[in-house]
């Protein structure tokens, strides 16, 4: 079936079987491999994308369920060479080691700012990261990165 949706501001489409997951359409049909498949069992959050601005697991959503929506993937965050403040914060705070979970963590970070605002606390971040697994870092620097990214997003808005 023909699936049409807007990805990172650009209208895209693909002709795929109805059983195609959104993550597989992004990666295999559209070449957007920044969205990762970690567990494929809805637990790890590596496949997180924004669907109409809200974070969802793209491994637990049919591409057909996203028809007509606005999808934002990790590729859609940077402005040319300028990293999004949340991405820059992960770099500055060393919020990653192997990097596999990072795209999903950044997307979860954006959801945390959407829900709690740019003055979010480390405790709120820790609570709201319960659907994202990282097997390297122990999460300390990831929490720091999201707090730093949130503050930076506040400054960007205020500027």
């Amino acid at each position: 079936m023909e699936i049409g949706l807007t990805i990172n501001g650009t209208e895209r489409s693909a002709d795929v079987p109805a059983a195609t997951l959104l993550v597989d359409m992004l990666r295999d049909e559209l070449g957007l491999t920044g969205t990762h498949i970690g567990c494929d069992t809805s637990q790890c959050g590596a496949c997180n994308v924004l669907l109409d601005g809200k974070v969802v697991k793209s491994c637990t959503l049919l591409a057909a369920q996203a028809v007509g929506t606005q999808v934002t993937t990790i590729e859609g965050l940077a402005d040319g060479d300028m990293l999004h403040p949340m991405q820059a914060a992960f770099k500055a705070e060393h919020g990653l080691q192997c990097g596999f979970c990072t795209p999903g963590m950044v997307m979860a970070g954006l959801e945390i700012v959407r829900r709690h605002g740019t003055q979010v606390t480390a405790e709120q971040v820790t609570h709201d990261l319960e659907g994202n697994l990282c097997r390297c870092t122990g999460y300390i620097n990831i929490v720091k990165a999201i707090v730093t990214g949130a503050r930076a997003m506040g400054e960007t808005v205020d500027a």
Partner: protein
Amino acid sequence: MRDFALSRPTTLAEAAAAFASGGEAAYLAGGHTLLPAMKSRLRMPDTLIDLSALPGITGVHHEADRLWIGALTTHAAVADDATVQSTIPGLARAALLIGDPMVRNRGTIGGVLANNDPAADYPAMAVAMDAVIETDRASHSADDYFQGMFATALEDGEIITRIGFRIPERAAYAKFRHPASRYAIVGVFVARFADGEVRVGIIGAGPGVFRWPQAEAALKNDFSPAAIKGLVLDSADLNTDIHAGPEYRAHLCGVMLANAVGEA
């Protein structure tokens, strides 16, 4: 996942017709149970019927002594809704304890109640708040609706349209999660109504949601954690697995109920 024919009806009648069109059919709500089951081929429907385009099946509506929630309302929408927060704040807080942020953005109350997983949270709220579960063809009371593990009063093809909770004066939910899977080992919702009635719904502990009449009676006399101190649930019919045996689950039911009463 095996391929299927996808249908996206815009009326309840079209949805029921698609369900009856032959072969195995399944309704898709939030999909956070069904799609994982389809990936592992525990479920292989020939026809998948996406309910998301049905009109009037989301949202919150306060009417007399009940709060009505549309079946396809997500957990995040329940948690964030101003009417839920003002009429049953314990329900808004409980919705925030379901799954994780991504699950809450997709999972729906109707999907949870139709599936009736023994560790799902909403059956506890439905039983404790004397819910009415309305469908395209009937109206079920929560006490009759839940019939054990993954079993409900729904007939083949029946679609939940909305859930009406009787509004309590005080209510709260407490759950003890498995530290890795985050599923409830025990979850307890308690509700106290204006006429003094107290209802307790327990999930995770048994093969399906159940009430605890002795605790309800004790709390009716004295709505405080002290009123149930020393009261122990009969563990005969409780679940046992590598995480928790029946006696431990019975103990947790008392502790979680006391926590919920303290918070309510």
